[in-house]
């Protein structure tokens, strides 16, 4: 009788142990999966933001023709990359700038010195930082993603 009782409690213990292992493994898998997914999503988002911001600006500059002028101006205390084009007496401007959170583009008609609000413009990509520096005929674009990864692209504006 005692042996039977003992045997039964061993069985119960084994069952509970197997179930506990199963439950712990299930929780571990879920946590690991969530962490890996979050890491991949963060990395891909940062990668996309870096690539799209740098590619957008470089393609914009490469598509400029001889009628368009590229200027790097300081407006509203931020560097503003301005593409200027005169058509039938009107001056069309495309301004590309970083407002502290987003890389933005703002198109308007008027003088390049005319004030504009950094609140305006279309969002291109969410970044931690985006700098534009001119070094002779080279334009150095540096983007920093939300995960603090930095990428640079140097463009020759001698076209």
């Amino acid at each position, binding site marked *: 009788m005692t042996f039977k009782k003992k*045997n*039964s409690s061993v*069985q*119960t213990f*084994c*069952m509970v142990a*197997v*179930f506990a*292992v*199963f439950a712990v*493994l*299930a929780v571990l*898998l879920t946590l*690991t*999966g969530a962490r*890996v*997914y979050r*890491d*991949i999503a963060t*990395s*891909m988002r940062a*990668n996309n933001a*870096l*690539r799209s911001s*740098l590619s957008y600006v*470089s393609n914009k500059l490469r598509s400029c023709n001889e009628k368009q002028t590229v200027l790097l101006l300081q407006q509203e205390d931020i560097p503003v990359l301005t593409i200027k084009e005169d058509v039938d007496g009107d001056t069309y401007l495309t301004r590309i700038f970083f407002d502290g959170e987003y890389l933005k583009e703002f198109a308007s008609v008027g003088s390049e010195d005319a004030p504009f609000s950094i609140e305006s413009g279309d969002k291109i990509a969410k970044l931690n930082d985006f700098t534009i520096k001119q070094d002779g005929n*080279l334009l150095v674009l540096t983007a920093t993603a939300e995960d603090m*990864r*930095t*990428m*640079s*692209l*140097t*463009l*020759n504006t001698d076209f």
Partner: protein
Amino acid sequence: MKRSRFWQSFFIEMAMVVLFFSLAVAVIIRFFAQGALLSEKSKEVNGAILAAQTVAQTFEKTEVSQSYTLFFDQNWKQTDQPSSFEMRILLEPTESGNGILCDCDIDVYKSQTQDLLFQLSTNRYFAQEGAK
């Protein structure tokens, strides 16, 4: 007796559940690992594209064929010593009109595995001094 049979069948059922769970875990972990590797590879290719574009935009005129290698670290900062990535550049100038047309082939490799990450071919015309 009845109780013992109940535990036996429950034990077998649990063993089966754990077995299938283990198989599922093996497959899912493989997917996670592949996802992480692809994400890493995408990051490397992205860096390689931008580094190659920068060199394609800034290479200087050369009078004779030239080949050289640039080294980059994990964050795509240029280094003097061999590091995580290497970029092999081949410049081949040819006389053309009043200047030199310089062909440039850029191959970016991962140093450790020698995997080709990105390849770019471009050319640039350098007008001779005084020529229009």
